[in-house]
């Protein structure tokens, strides 16, 4: 204990060393060493350990360790290690720094003992992750990154407002059970603030808008950390909240319908991410020990199989530069290993027996049955079938089989294959031998996934759903893959921002016209009555200098340029408000 540091420290400090390592091998070693070092540090922290520093009248608990946070800590480290192996070939230091910064912030969130510390890491999480999007360095990534940042800044402010009210009301900053209380604004604000990071319906488009625009390697980290740390906070502060059951069911069901018709496979997987987090949110909402264990174990498994799926499609994208169903197909020929890893990920997420989701998702569905929630049970079973459709079949089928695209790319590089191999190993290990996974759960696990009836039921469900796919495909009824944009809730932001821009530039143009009439035409000619030439020349010069080419530039950027400073200003006001509330 005395030799340990808070779990986030090694990642955050290590990030800033990266640019100083000029030697390729030294840098690679550093990227792999840090997650291992940080993990060793974590192992030495036992439940009950904590670090705290005084701040104003409060004690900031930088780190508080218990069983719940430890599970997330372990799997975040595993995901980080896999992610860095996968990204070893990347020469862009900024990406590695952002990944460390992002990973460290996520560890900060899950080990934070008080809400103020949690909030600070919550914001750093956004900062780190947005660079994993921007470093893709495309125009689409730039715009998506701005929208992503905007969502999270708004979410962060809602969370902060909730935390301030909560602290004011209860006098306690501890990250502990809050629960949704009728008429208690603080509990609702925190709930919604966390919900934005958890990608609840309508609050979700940052996932499906921005993740597919991020770098090939960055998306591995993104898919693992932000939503899962939000799931952690819900498990900590809102277990057993009935509203969560229906939010979760809605996530599980709506996202997959979009996934069916989406063309970009990385976007399909982003919808799939929402669908899977829906199962977890549902489990937390049910709130029994079985359900919470199910939600947490499913979070662990989801991090691994979702990383595996994103990695396999990433490898395809790395070799071919394409990620759309309409442009891919038949790649099993020259990328057989990647294809097999993709199928392992697909089998794991679908919940085939011996694969990971079989032992975790079923706990949540069983908990629904235990509680007699029949409608919920049917919705979750429906969603399970949908998982098979979009992640289990669609992703491997359209990338590696289907029609022959004629592409003959080389197999993925060794570091990508190694990373996929590790993830695939854990997908099968957790599924076939769930004991170690169960032993990490916050509550003792009294659940037996491998009964004859369960194995039989799940296998039949998946096999006959696959049969439906085969028949639909052969009869031509399966919806054709199309190059298209599917409208989603981000429409309001993307088109709304344009409306704001139109209004703002409209007003600016109006003011400019009045100004021009007044200062360029009227005043000079008026003044020139007194002194003819010099003033009108000056006015012409002013007119030319002030001539706005700016408006064109604003139109080109598909973002809200004025929004960010405004929000920073609001953030500053919040900090001031906090100061006065705490002091007052």
């Amino acid at each position, binding site marked *: 204990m005395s030799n340990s540091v808070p779990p986030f420290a090694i990642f955050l400090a290590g990030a800033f060393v990266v640019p100083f390592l000029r030697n390729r091998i030294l840098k690679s070693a550093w990227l792999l060493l840090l997650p291992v070092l940080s993990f060793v540090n974590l192992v030495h922290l036992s439940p009950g350990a904590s670090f705290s520093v005084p701040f104003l009248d409060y004690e900031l608990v930088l780190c508080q360790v218990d069983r719940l946070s430890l599970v997330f800590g372990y799997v975040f480290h595993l995901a980080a290690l896999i992610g860095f192996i996968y990204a070893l070939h990347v020469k862009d230091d900024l990406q590695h720094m952002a990944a460390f910064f992002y990973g460290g912030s996520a560890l900060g969130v899950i080990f934070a003992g008080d809400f103020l510390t949690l909030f600070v890491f919550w914001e750093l999480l956004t900062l780190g992750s947005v660079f994993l999007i921007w470093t893709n360095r495309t125009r689409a990534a730039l715009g998506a990154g701005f929208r992503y940042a905007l969502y999270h800044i708004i979410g962060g402010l809602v969370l902060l407002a909730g935390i301030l009210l909560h602290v004011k009301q209860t006098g306690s900053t501890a990250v502990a059970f809050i629960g949704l209380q009728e008429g208690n604004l603080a509990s609702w604000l925190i709930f919604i603030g966390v919900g934005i990071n958890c990608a609840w319906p309508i609050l979700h488009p940052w996932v499906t808008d921005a993740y597919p625009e991020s770098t090939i390697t960055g998306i591995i980290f993104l898919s693992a950390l932000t939503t899962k740390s939000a799931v952690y906070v819900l498990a900590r502060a809102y277990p057993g909240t009935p509203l969560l059951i229906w939010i979760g069911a809605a996530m599980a069901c709506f996202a*997959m*319908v*979009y996934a*069916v*018709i989406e063309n970009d496979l990385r976007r399909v997987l982003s919808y799939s991410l929402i669908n899977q987090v829906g199962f977890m949110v549902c489990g937390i909402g049910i709130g029994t020990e079985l359900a919470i264990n199910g939600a947490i174990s499913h979070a662990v498994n989801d991090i691994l199989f979702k990383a595996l799926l994103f990695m396999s499609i990433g490898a395809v994208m790395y070799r071919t530069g394409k990620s759309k169903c309409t442009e891919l197909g038949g790649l*099993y*020929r020259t990328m057989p290993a990647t294809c097999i890893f993709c199928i392992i990920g697909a089998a794991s997420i679908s919940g085939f027996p011996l694969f990971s989701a079989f032992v975790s998702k079923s706990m949540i569905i*069983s908990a629904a*049955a*235990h509680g007699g929630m*029949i409608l919920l*049970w049917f919705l979750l*079973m*429906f969603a399970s*079938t*949908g998982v*098979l*459709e979009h992640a289990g079949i669609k992703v491997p089928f359209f990338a590696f*089989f289907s029609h022959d695209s004629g592409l003959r790319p080389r197999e993925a590089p060794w570091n990508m294959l190694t990373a996929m191999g590790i993830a695939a190993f854990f997908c099968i290990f957790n599924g076939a031998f769930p004991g170690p996974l169960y032993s990490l759960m916050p509550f003792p696990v009294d659940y037996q996934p491998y*009964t*004859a*009836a369960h194995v*039989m*039921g*799940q*296998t*039949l*469900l*998946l*096999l*006959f*759903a*696959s*049969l*439906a*796919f*085969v028949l*639909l495909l052969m009869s031509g*009824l*399966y*919806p054709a893959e*199309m*190059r*298209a*944009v*599917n*409208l*989603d809730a981000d429409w309001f932001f*993307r088109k709304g921002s344009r409306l704001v821009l139109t209004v703002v530039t409209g007003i600016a143009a109006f003011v400019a016209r009045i100004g021009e009439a007044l200062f360029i035409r009227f005043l000079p000619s008026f003044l020139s009555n007194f002194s003819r030439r010099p003033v009108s020349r000056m006015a012409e010069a002013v007119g030319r200098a002030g001539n706005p080419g700016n408006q064109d530039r604003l139109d080109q950027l*598909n973002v809200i340029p004025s929004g960010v400073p405004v929000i920073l200003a609001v953030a500053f006001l919040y900090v001031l408000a906090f100061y006065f509330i705490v002091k007052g």
Partner: protein
Amino acid sequence: MKKEYLFDKPKNVKRFFTLFYILLAVFLIADFFTAKHGELPWENWPAFYAVFGFVAFVFLVFGAKYILRPLVKRREDYYE
């Protein structure tokens, strides 16, 4: 000569599907002899999960194809 891969041969594709259909049949028959202890009554009906899986899958695909897609599909450069 152009290199031939696993599923370029129609024979292999046929083998794959034969295997798949046999698997379906075996599991479907075995289901009738499996002891059930489901908490919900329909879990114990024979072949319930097979029918549910098939119907749910078709329902989802048709829902996406005939309801959602016509509502939300736009040209690929819609946001450009």
